[in-house]
């Protein structure tokens, strides 16, 4: 059975279409939903976690409909929202036991201990959470979410506000969970993290999924490698197959190719054979940022830039 099956999911707030007829099928993978602010990421997650009722369409989580059988859906999922809601006045252990009890787990203490060990919080489990770092709090939230061994885990911006080490650790845990067979649905702003961790990525813009594939495929699909060659002389031959000429800036010739390294070698060989003097070859791999910008474009902020306020802000400094 597919873990998440989204069928024509739509949410309207008055005249605004936040999510527009989304169709997705996600199973046993880390699925990353990327998109600019206000593109409908959180609205999607809230509908899938039964916190919002869809205007149209439906979604099945492990076969249970979010509109018809929300209680069953909640038994299968865990949801970790953006805002890091853990009780600072309770200890880490108390925070997790509380969730274990709410989920009605037979042995709440033992299960909580297992979750704390798994997320490397066991040695600090009896300290008050107010002494925890941001990364530890996030891991504590994961421990809470994992006590009932959910089939599907929803994470909304799991690494927001964490330092580099903290982020890597969170992703290591998420990848570990996927290896155990869990389906993870994650939204994020960090392209490099999505590229590194997600099996598939969906890019959402204005409520519509504009592209969906593996990170590698997205990068080859949307923008190819860029090869830049500086050479003296004139080329009379034919470009090797699969390489297209993009243009010239100064003495630099630019090409687009599926595999930049191979294209670079092939091009410089062809140029040399034609009697040209190749001085440098450079290859730039497209990043997910390039893909994102190519698909979504530079974002206009929804609010107009307030120059007066900007000046007041500068003066206050």
């Amino acid at each position: 059975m597919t873990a998440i099956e989204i069928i024509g999911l739509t949410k309207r707030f008055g005249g605004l279409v936040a999510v527009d007829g989304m169709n997705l099928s996600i199973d046993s993978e880390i699925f990353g939903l990327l998109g600019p602010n206000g593109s409908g990421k959180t609205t999607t997650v809230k509908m899938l976690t039964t916190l919002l009722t869809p205007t149209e369409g439906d979604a099945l989580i492990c076969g249970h409909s979010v509109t018809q059988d929300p209680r069953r859906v909640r038994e299968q999922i865990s949801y970790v929202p953006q805002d890091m809601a853990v009780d600072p006045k309770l200890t880490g252990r108390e925070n997790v036991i509380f969730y274990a009890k709410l989920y009605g787990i037979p042995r709440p203490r033992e299960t909580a201990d297992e979750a704390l060990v798994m997320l490397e919080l066991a040695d600090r489990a009896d300290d008050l959470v107010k002494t925890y770092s941001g990364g530890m709090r996030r891991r504590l939230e994961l421990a809470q979410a994992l006590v009932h061994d959910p089939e599907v885990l929803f994470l909304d911006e799991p690494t927001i506000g964490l330092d580099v080490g903290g982020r890597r650790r969170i992703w290591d845990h998420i990848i570990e969970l996927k290896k155990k067979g869990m389906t993870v649905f994650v939204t994020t702003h960090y392209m490099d993290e999505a590229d590194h961790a997600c099996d598939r990525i969906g890019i959402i813009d204005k409520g519509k999924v504009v592209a969906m594939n593996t990170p590698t495929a997205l990068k080859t699909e949307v923008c190819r490698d860029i090869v830049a060659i500086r050479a003296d002389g004139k080329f009379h031959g034919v470009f090797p197959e699969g390489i297209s000429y993009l243009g010239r800036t100064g003495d630099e010739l630019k090409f687009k190719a599926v595999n930049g390294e191979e294209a670079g070698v092939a091009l410089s060989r062809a140029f040399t054979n034609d009697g040209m003097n190749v001085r440098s070859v450079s290859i730039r791999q497209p990043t997910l940022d390039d893909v994102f910008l190519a698909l979504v474009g530079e974002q206009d902020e929804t609010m107009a830039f307030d120059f007066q306020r900007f000046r007041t802000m500068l003066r206050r400094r």
Partner: protein
Amino acid sequence: MRETLYYMERDFRRWSRGRVNVISALILPAAWLIFVGLALPIRFTDNYLDFITPGILVLTMLGASLQGGALLMFDKILGFLQKFLAMPAPRETILFGKILFITCRGLIQTTIILIMAIILGAHYLNPLLLLQTYIVLFIFGVLLSSVMTTVALSLEDHDSYAAFNSMIAMPLFFTSSALMPYDQMPAWLATIAHLNPVSYAIDAIRAMQEGIFPATTILGLLIGATCVLSVSVVVFRRATL
């Protein structure tokens, strides 16, 4: 409904870790009990402390409920509520847990005030009277904390809640029968006091002090509490959709 208790347990743990809130909740009623109960020159009774103790007990409950109403709103603002709502536990248990916590916390505070009153000389050591007092206070607590939780959920921000709170707290207390009997009040005040739900709770306890079981008043409070609780369930469901 086990979950109700787990939600309540969480709030009790959090409350017990904050030293200031435990003490601060007792200062105001204790001050009333000591400064008004002992110092006011009153002519209509020989033992004003006996007369005012039910009023102060209900005031303590009133304060606890007003203070507690914002708790659920904070859970909402800070993101806890979202996590709770995505769990399989029946959603209403979140609300019931909160109301039960506010009421039970109020009962703990009233117990401390009651002990103070007894030490100061109030005649309150009758077990039946104590039991009945607690029942009245519990019903009153459920009534008032449901009202305040509903208000907080509908207002959705803390400033307006605090404003609403300070607007109703003192008028509710002063227009009740807490400080003087109806026959000592000016006619207009007596009319208001007869309508004030705070008076119902106070009058019920006073009746029990005299050995009368105030069945109608208790029934009235019970019906009131049930109605308000149903309204707050509706508001809660709407606020969480």
